[in-house]
């Protein structure tokens, strides 16, 4: 679990967060919603410590995760490298080796299997589809030992089928035997988010630093969505399935 209290952050003079409290529960898929430019990516960067929050008195940052992995939208990939070699890149960080040893190869194969790319391991990465490439990138995260994935619009450019495949995979990773992986996603498609997410963080437009966060059933109310996006929504709840439609 990550728990941030009294988060303050500004870019130059523009206040992005003011005394905001943020919580990311373990073992759930968390979705961050909000219009463009309210600070969704900023929030993730504060969590990875790429950006530094203002050090105020009440500020506290509590983190139970071992390691995080941040994945941007449209990450670039090298050419002429097989998926297997692409993933093995992670292991060159330490030591002076020229080749992977057997146990490391085994780990790469396991990660490929976990992201359902095992049959594509000899294919060059540039020939993977957008969805498969993001899966390969997530396998990089798995190999690096991360137990928290921060996916910055990582599924936004995908067609419906690939999006659903990724969510099914993320759901599986939550219950991985050797330690589950919690995911946090920034998304724009509210319906898909409502379908797959369990915990929601909404960042409000115009009211800087105001954050709404709740579990799914409490989060999707007309009032919350209007506060976040500034327009009216119609919400239908069919046996626990939530459908959201914007009204003008």
């Amino acid at each position, binding site marked *: 679990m990550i728990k941030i209290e009294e988060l303050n952050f500004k870019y130059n003079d523009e206040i992005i967060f003011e005394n905001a409290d943020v919580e990311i529960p373990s073992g759930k898929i968390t979705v961050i919603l909000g219009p463009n430019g309210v600070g969704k990516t900023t929030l993730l960067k504060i969590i990875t410590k790429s950006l530094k929050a203002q050090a105020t008195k009440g500020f506290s940052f509590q983190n139970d995760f071992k390691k995080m*992995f941040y994945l941007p939208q449209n*990450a*670039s990939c090298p*050419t*002429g490298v097989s998926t297997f070699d692409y993933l093995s890149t992670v292991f060159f960080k330490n030591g002076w080796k*020229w080749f992977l040893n057997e146990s490391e190869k085994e780990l790469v194969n396991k990660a490929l299997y976990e992201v359902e790319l095992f049959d594509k391991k000899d294919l060059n990465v540039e020939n993977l589809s957008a969805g498969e490439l993001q899966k390969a990138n997530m396998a990089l995260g798995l190999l690096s030992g991360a137990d928290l994935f921060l996916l910055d619009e990582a599924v936004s450019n995908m067609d419906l089928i690939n999006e659903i495949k990724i969510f099914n995979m993320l759901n599986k990773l939550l219950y991985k035997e050797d330690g589950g992986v919690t995911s946090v996603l920034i998304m724009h498609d509210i319906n898909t988010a409502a379908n797959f997410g369990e915990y929601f963080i909404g960042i409000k437009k115009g009211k800087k630093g105001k954050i709404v966060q709740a579990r799914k059933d409490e989060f999707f109310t007309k009032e919350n969505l209007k506060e976040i996006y500034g327009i009216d929504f119609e919400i239908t709840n069919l046996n626990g399935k939530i459908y959201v439609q914007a009204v003008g």
Partner: protein
Amino acid sequence: MKKKGLIFLILFSGFILSLLLSLFFGLEEPFRGDSALILSMIRIPAVLKAIVAGSCLALSGMMLQTISKNPLADPYLTGLSSGAGLGIVLSILLFNGINYSIFGFLGALISACLVISLSGFSKFSITKLILIGLSLNLFASSVISFLILLNPDKAYSMTLILTGGFSSADISNKTLCLLFVILLFICALFIPKLNILRLDSRLVFQNEQGANKFNILFVILSAFLTSLAVYSAGILGFAGIICPLLVRLLLGSDARILFFGNILAGSTLLLIANFISNNLIYPMQIPLGVVVAIIGAPFFVFFLVKKGGAILK
């Protein structure tokens, strides 16, 4: 995998062929009929310098292209070569020849640091990098030209540095080989780390601030390589940009494979260029840089047009 093996075989046989060609053919007039003397006095030193300069430029270009994630980065365009050249020219003027390579290295290192820090270390802006490198390149070359004008007595050795040519350094073969082997060994130690830099730099693996550390390391290594190249063959453009790109087109982006590919391709290019520059309009010598560009450009453009989409996207 099979295809890569075949390409390696072609590169290797190309290298051997050009090596034999430059060792055993040529139009130099024999000194008193003694062809062994030609071999040891003229051809072997030239061949050694071609191999050293070619491999160093290609490796340095490959490192710069990988760390900047920009196919345009090379020792010439980023101003490294001219910086090293300026360092060497200054040492010719001030110290009468000793410590060539130390000054060359300092020059290359200072220009590398200047260019890379000015264009933003982790967030490279392509335009900025090229413009700053180009300015530095022009600045250093102009200072060299100016120094040549001021010192007509040492003009010849300094001009050779500026236009490229193998006779500029009177270093013994042994020292050159020793330096080269040491450098290659250091490169071989670090080369697998270059693979890490092929990942998108925006990916964050928290608790590891590794990438930046390796950036600096490879900048220093490429400065070393460039200074040795400039030291043995003067300032040569183009070799450092086409070899890494061509090899990457053919062999993919695994730094461990590219390492050998670049050594072979770089040496072959300079060996052939050296042979042509010595023998095409004998007894005149065409400046090496001119030959490299004339044979390199068409070849390179051909490959780029045919299958360049992959690396330029």
